[in-house]
C-alpha cells in the first residue's frame, strides 16, 4: 500500500500542473484504494506539417507552436522487451537565416543508461544527450533531406518490466553561426513506466530550463 501511495504521489508531482484528477475507488467501505484514473483528455493529434503546431501538454492546454517545426510522434514504439516512444522532428527555418542548424537535447531520468566519457549519474541528474564528441549536438540528426533543413530522430525506451521509470527530454532546435548556437524553439516530450505500463508525455512547446539553456554554451556539460 505504501508503495502504491508513493507512486500516486509521484504521479501527481510529475504531472503537475496538468489537468488531472485522481479518482480513488474504495471497496469494502473505506478500505483499500483500487486504482487511479487520469482524467485529462487525450492529447490532440499533433500537426504533422505546417507552422501552427499545437500539442496538448498533458492537460489539454494548447501551446503555441514553433514556426517551421513538424512532428512525427508515436506514443509507443514498444516491442516484446521495451516500452518507449518514437519521435521524428523536422525543421525548416521560415526565415532561412542560418546556413547550419543543430538539435540539443537534455534528458532527465531516474534510470539513466551508461555512456562512455561520462561519469555515473545520479537519479534525475540532467545530462546532455550527446556522445561526448566535444559538441553539444544530438547525434541522430540529418540535414537537407526529406524537404527539411534538418531532422532529428529518437526512440528512447526502457525494459517493459520496469516498475518505475521517468524519462523527460528537452530538445531545442537552433541555428549555428560562427560556432554559436542560437536557439529557435524548445519542446519537451517523454514517457513514464509504472508497474510495466507506459504513460506517454506528448510533445509540447516550452521554455528551456536553466540547465538546458546553459548546456548550449557550457562545454563542461558535453
Amino acid at each position, binding site marked *: 500500500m505504501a508503495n502504491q501511495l508513493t507512486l500516486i504521489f509521484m504521479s501527481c508531482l510529475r504531472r503537475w500542473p496538468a489537468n488531472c484528477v485522481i479518482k480513488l475507488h474504495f471497496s469494502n467501505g473505506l478500505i483499500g484504494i483500487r486504482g487511479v484514473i487520469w482524467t485529462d483528455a487525450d492529447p490532440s493529434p499533433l500537426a504533422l506539417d505546417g507552422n501552427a503546431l499545437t500539442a496538448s501538454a498533458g492537460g489539454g492546454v494548447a501551446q503555441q507552436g514553433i514556426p517551421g517545426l513538424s512532428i512525427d510522434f508515436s506514443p509507443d514504439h514498444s516491442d516484446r522487451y521495451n516500452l518507449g516512444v518514437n519521435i521524428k522532428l523536422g525543421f525548416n527555418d521560415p526565415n532561412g537565416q542560418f546556413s547550419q542548424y543543430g538539435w540539443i537535447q537534455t534528458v532527465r*531520468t531516474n534510470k539513466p*543508461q551508461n*555512456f562512455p566519457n561520462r561519469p555515473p549519474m545520479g537519479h534525475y541528474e540532467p545530462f546532455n*544527450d*550527446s556522445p561526448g564528441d566535444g559538441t553539444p549536438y544530438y*547525434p541522430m540528426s540529418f540535414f537537407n533531406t526529406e524537404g527539411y533543413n534538418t531532422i532529428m530522430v529518437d*526512440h528512447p525506451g*526502457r525494459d517493459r518490466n520496469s516498475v518505475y521509470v521517468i524519462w523527460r527530454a528537452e530538445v531545442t532546435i537552433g541555428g549555428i553561426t560562427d560556432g554559436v548556437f542560437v536557439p529557435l524553439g524548445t519542446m519537451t516530450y517523454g514517457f513514464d513506466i509504472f508497474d510495466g505500463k507506459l504513460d506517454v508525455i506528448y510533445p509540447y512547446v516550452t521554455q528551456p530550463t536553466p540547465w538546458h539553456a546553459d548546456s548550449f554554451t557550457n562545454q563542461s556539460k558535453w
Partner: protein
Amino acid sequence: MVKLIFAAFLLFSTCCNAQFQSKIASDHIRIDHVGPSDAMIEPIIITTKKLTLPVPEVPIQVSQDIFESLTKYLDDFGNLLPEREINEFGVFKVTKRVGNKTEICFTGTRKKSVKFLTEFKKLLKDVGAADELVKKIERVLKRIDY
C-alpha cells in the same frame, strides 16, 4: 471473433518491432540496437543495391564481393544468438537477408556487441569497404564501448 481480432491486434502491436523499420526486399545486412536507451543509436544497413530509405535509415551500398565477405563473417561469428540473452543497453539485432532467406540473431550482451562490432569494423577495413561504413561502426562503438 471480436476477441480473436483484438487478441491478434494486441499480439501484433506488442511483438512487432518493425513498425519503424523499412522492409527491404533485396539482399542486405542490418544491425539495429534493440536494448533500452536514452539516445538512438543509428542503424547500420548494408545493401548491394542503391536504396533510399527515410531517415534515420541510411543504407550504404557495397559490392557483391564485400557483401559476401560480410555475410560469411556473420555465419562464422560464433557468439551470435537466436534470442536475446538479456535486455540491456548495447544489445543489437543482426538481420541478414540473402536471396529470399532472412536470418535474425542477437549479439547477446553489450560486451559481446563490442567484440562483434570491433571485428566487423576490422573486416570492413580489410575488404576495403567505404569509409562512411567504417565510421558508422566507430560511432556506434564509441557509444557502447566503455
